[in-house]
């Protein structure tokens, strides 16, 4: 592995993995706090028909059209989930389960149809992504990192994810307090005039955009894992809102970096001539972090609780 290999292969792919992880980890906090981690699963699957329709209309993986399609599908999913819940008088989780599986299945049928018309998209690519394809061939050396011409050729997936990270980070900073109140106590939020419903739909919309920005590179399975694992692990480690956010971001980016390194570059550095699927490895690392947090969390962890119980017994 050479420096050029690193700049052309590992930097763009690793950075894309890290950016997708941080994006999902940020949004995941609000899902975990609302006890709605399943919404992430629901939305990232429900956008599939929108992605396919956008893809067919644009004739390519043009980001804007695909994002519009996905947004429309997410909005439809949010409305349908609400409708099924009210009309069917079922639990929210059951309603989500029904809507997202049906929409995902619809997307798979659409893909099979579109594939017959030679469209370069398949369910496999949506589920698993293709992180290894995120190449940046422009750099010729370290100087290229500052060369505007080379930077202009950064892979589209990477640029989209960076922009999404900025936008989501900014929105969260702007609505920090509102998000906190609507997450912890929606009834109180409504009572003091904060539209909790609006924030819910806003979150759904951002989830849809994040899912689309990530799916091409890392696949929707990693999106689901990163929406839930870092935030849930952070939740085990702290009770403070701000600290949880920071921790989840650290766990997300850390898992992205570590997972990518373990899957490919590390094996090559050790002299192996094969490597593992990077997106899969990142999800495995995030899951392992969650398990560690569940076991060793300072207050909510299994061991801490057992110790507390023992001490209570001794007194």
């Amino acid at each position: 592995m050479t420096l050029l290999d690193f700049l052309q292969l590992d930097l763009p792919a690793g950075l894309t993995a890290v950016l997708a992880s941080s994006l999902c980890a940020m949004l995941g906090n609000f899902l975990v706090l609302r006890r709605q981690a399943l919404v992430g699963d629901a939305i990232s699957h429900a956008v599939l028909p929108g992605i396919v329709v956008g893809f067919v209309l644009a004739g390519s993986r043009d980001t804007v059209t695909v994002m519009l399609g996905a947004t429309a599908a997410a909005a439809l999913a949010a409305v349908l989930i609400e409708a099924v819940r009210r009309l069917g008088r079922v639990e929210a989780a059951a309603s989500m389960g029904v809507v997202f599986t049906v929409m995902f299945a619809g997307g798979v049928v659409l893909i099979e149809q579109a594939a017959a018309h030679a469209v370069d998209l398949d369910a496999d690519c949506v589920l698993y992504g293709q992180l290894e394809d995120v190449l940046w061939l422009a750099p010729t050396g370290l100087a290229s990192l500052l060369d505007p011409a080379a930077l202009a050729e950064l892979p589209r997936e990477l640029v989209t994810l960076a922009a999404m990270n900025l936008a989501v980070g900014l929105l969260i900073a702007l609505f920090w307090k509102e998000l906190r109140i609507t997450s912890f106590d929606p009834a109180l939020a409504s009572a003091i005039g904060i539209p909790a419903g609006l924030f819910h739909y806003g979150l759904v919309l951002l989830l849809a955009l994040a899912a689309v920005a990530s799916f091409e590179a890392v696949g929707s399975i990693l999106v689901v894992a990163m929406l839930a694992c870092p935030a849930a692990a952070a939740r085990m480690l702290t009770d403070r809102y701000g600290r949880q956010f920071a921790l989840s971001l650290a766990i997300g980016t850390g898992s992205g970096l570590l997972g990518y390194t373990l899957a490919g570059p590390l094996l090559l550095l050790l002299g192996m001539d094969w490597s593992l699927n990077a997106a899969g490895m990142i999800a495995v690392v995030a899951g392992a972090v969650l398990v560690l947090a569940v076991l060793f969390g300072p207050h909510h962890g299994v061991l801490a609780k057992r110790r507390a119980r023992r001490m209570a017994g001794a007194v």
Partner: protein
Amino acid sequence: MTHSRTPAFSRRAMLAGGAALSATALLPLQSAAAQGGFTALATTGMVGDILRHLVGDRGRVEVLLGSGVDPHTYKLTRADIGRLMGADIVVYNGLLLEGKMTDALVRVASSGRPVLAVTEDLGDDYLLSPKEFEGQYDPHVWMDVGGWIRATAKALERLTAFRPADADAFAANAAAYTATLRDLDAYARRVLGSVEPQRRVLVTAHDAFGYFGRAYGFEVLGIQGISTESETGLRRIQELVDTLVTRNIPAVFVETTVSDRNVRALVEGSAARGHRVAIGGALFSDAMGAPGSYEGTYVGMIDHNVTTIARALGGAVPARGMAGRLAAL
């Protein structure tokens, strides 16, 4: 407003990059140039076989996909991308055979490295475009030895342009290889021609034998479509069972890179209707046999297929194939 955040982002990116950089900078440089000659990388074994014969001792030939790997569905790993980027010239089959690798191949080509498809010169006059595969060509050109001779010519042309200094060696190698391929083609015509005309029907797991069928006068029926990605409909199985029963076809074939589940369904379906169909053997469709074996070469692969098909359908076949080198069947 976004400007206030930009420095934070790029600092994080630089930090992450810098940490990893310091680790990789310590590594020894590895490149093909250091070992003399050049490195040519082929995607499939069949393309690699052309390259091995043409390049000879003038360079090193690597093959990305091993024996038994299905090129339609294979996804590149980080190590594969490294090999792609490390090669001096990349040669692939083309016509979307390497389905999930296409993006990476396009990106490598855009870096200015020579990347060529051996099928790129074959035009509408040669290529098949089955109707269920709307607007796209069937990529399984190597199944017709005549088509592969044309692919060899294309590879020779591009290799010569890439290394004019070795043009004579390439040309001599190509002439010898083409002569072997012509013998193979003649053998295939002779052996397959010994199958009774009404029995010249080849039923396989997926539609990989279109060019084979056209070149050697066989009707070809695949259970799955051109790509192994496509789903099999129950109706397709029913149709094929009907054909097997009504035309009294004695054998169907499995493929080494495709699950034999669908083919076994045909055998059972026919048995339920009182027609005994044998599995005539395993054909090499999208990948060659084990490396180092005779079947692990292009000639051995085609010899195996042709001999297996002709024998199962009742043709007159030499015991161990064209050159007496086939593993006992």
